[in-house]
């Protein structure tokens, strides 16, 4: 009989399969990854249903989920963006005169960008003077970490690693390289990564992150819990926290970020982020700030 534990286990296994598929010989197997995302979706839905009461304690996501209510839940929407991006990067060569890697942009156009193996990058903060935890009132959008004004043409998100105080800014699916293994850069400077990727994801413990199908550079977060955390099993609290932050429309929400009103997300999720920050266990270090 399927149980919540099996669902969490399946989520973990599925994410690992997706990640390992990137390094498989012959390229990403579209068929297999599609099936894995179905399992991921089923497990997530089962887990959310089982933890409905916990989700109710979290800030309501009516605004966001309402957007997706109309979506046929059996239909994969959005969650394939990352895979599509990565796959598109790999397979547009035959459809265009020259290969280019194009993450999805709101207007659907592509931008030609050189390609680089992203795995060599690490997260480095351009500056961390403003990223004091004591100031982590995430709902204050006007704080001075230079959060760009979101707009439909240049949607931006800022990802904060609370361990290393690394700030990474995402613009239109471009993962600005804060992540290059370079010394600190002057405030405001952003080095652009050579490879574009859709980074609607949480930077969390490598054993558990959203199905970002693009090779995401990450490093293991130094955590007090690392010494006793089992990399093969996920802590109940960790998963609950993550899924509560994700919300009932989590996967779709993340991968279709370009279609979502960022202001709505900002208002509804910041409270939850605070909740997660202060109640989550140690491994939930990096959260997404808007």
């Amino acid at each position: 009989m399927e149980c919540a534990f099996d669902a969490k286990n399946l989520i973990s296994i599925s994410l690992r399969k997706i990640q390992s598929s990137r390094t498989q010989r012959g390229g990403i197997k579209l068929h297999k990854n599609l099936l894995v995302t179905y399992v991921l979706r089923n497990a997530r839905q089962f887990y959310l249903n089982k933890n409905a009461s916990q989700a109710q304690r979290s800030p309501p996501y009516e605004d966001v989920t309402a957007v997706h209510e109309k979506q046929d839940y059996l239909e994969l929407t959005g969650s394939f963006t990352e895979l599509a991006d990565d796959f598109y990067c790999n397979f547009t060569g035959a459809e265009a005169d020259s290969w280019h890697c194009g993450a999805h942009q709101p207007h659907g156009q592509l931008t030609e960008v050189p390609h680089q193996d992203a795995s060599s990058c690490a997260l480095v903060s351009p500056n961390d003077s403003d990223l004091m935890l004591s100031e982590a009132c995430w709902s204050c959008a006007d704080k001075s970490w230079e959060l760009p004004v979101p707009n439909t043409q240049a949607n931006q998100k800022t990802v904060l690693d609370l361990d290393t105080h690394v700030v990474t800014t995402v613009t239109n699916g471009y993962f600005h390289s804060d992540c290059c293994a370079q010394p600190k850069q002057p405030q405001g400077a952003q080095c652009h990564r050579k490879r574009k990727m859709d980074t609607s994801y949480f930077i969390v413990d490598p054993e558990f992150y959203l199905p970002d199908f693009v090779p995401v550079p990450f490093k293991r977060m130094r955590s007090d819990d690392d010494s006793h955390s089992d990399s093969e099993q996920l802590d109940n609290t960790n998963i609950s926290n993550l899924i509560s932050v994700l919300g009932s429309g989590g996967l779709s929400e993340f991968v279709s970020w370009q279609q979502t009103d960022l202001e709505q997300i900002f208002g509804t999720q910041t409270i939850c982020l605070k909740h997660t920050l202060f109640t989550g266990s140690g491994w939930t270090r990096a959260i997404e700030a808007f």
Partner: protein
Amino acid sequence: MMAGPGGGSSDVQWCFSQVKGAMDDDVAEADIISTVEFNQSGELLATGDKGGRVVIFQQEPESKNQPLRRGEYNVYSTFQSHEPEFDYLKSLEIEEKINKIRWLPQKNAAHFLLSTNDKTIKLWKISERDKRPEGYNLKEEDGRYKDPSTVTTLRVPVLMPMDLMVEASPRRVFANAHTYHINSISINSDCETYLSADDLRINLWHQEITDRSFNIVDIKPANMEDLTEVITAAEFHPNQCNTFVYSSSKGTIRMCDMRASALCDKHTKMFEEPEDPNNRSFFSEIISSISDVKFSNNGRYMMTRDYLSIKIWDLCMETRPVETYQVHEYLRSKLCSLYENDCIFDKFECCWNGNDSVVMTGSYNNFFRMFDRGYQQDVTYEASRENSRPRSILKPRKISTGC
């Protein structure tokens, strides 16, 4: 395996015949067989492996002393069909693994087959040479050219017998037409065209033309976010050159008529069985994905294989299969473990016997199953080389789930 003498299907006895390949368990990755295919007469058996090689076995002629016993298969030809490639533009390695082999109908003494890896299809000619010309006027026997001034007489070269040599030569290379991984090739009954299918598209080729192909099916959505299924197999109808079917990862089969339109995105028939809600699980989508589709020889039925079952469809009825056979239902309770070790993604094939009365498919642990449609019987055999003497009759196996 060979079938013993018998009239009806139930009288057929299956016997062990021979085993080809490495006998030990330490097999190199490249030597793992990835596809097998008999030619139309059954005289030749082609195997493709992960190393891109094709090995063809030929059956010995029937012995006059024992006319009812078919000869054994021996190696006939071996050649390297595909090599590993690297797409520098996309930073992708293209595996040399042979995904499918299909024999072309024989028209002359030579044999032709199509072999494909993930990206490229090749047409090979396998021909025999047992004679060689001797007595050239301008060439020595070793091939060196003579000085024309030394030639004083002329003679007509003659063909002299030589040791049989089987040559495999690539005649056509059909490349750069598939963005995604090729999973199927199928020869058309018109003996001129064939189709190749990848995850999202199906192309129609002419056997003589390599620089172009026609895209006849394209299920790639405008936005990849909307992708919900992929093509898993495709096959031409055995008699109707305008008809083909393709199966999907959602468990549906679509039949298309190329006379209706150039682009067959709109199917003429769609075969789909409603899902049983009682069997709903995390893995419902995976186990419903069709891994193989085969038309019956008479062209009236088709068979599909998904992870746990075989279904026989009447081409005139789209709502449900006419027959369903459970191959290894005992695995349904173990799907979670099978998912974890990736076995759930294994793709099984299926086939019809000559008169469409029996269908066969494989399972795990060297088991294969045969379902007699007429007598409604099924039998499980083990293809094991251990404790198997040539001509020994296979004993049916029973699967015990245990406690």
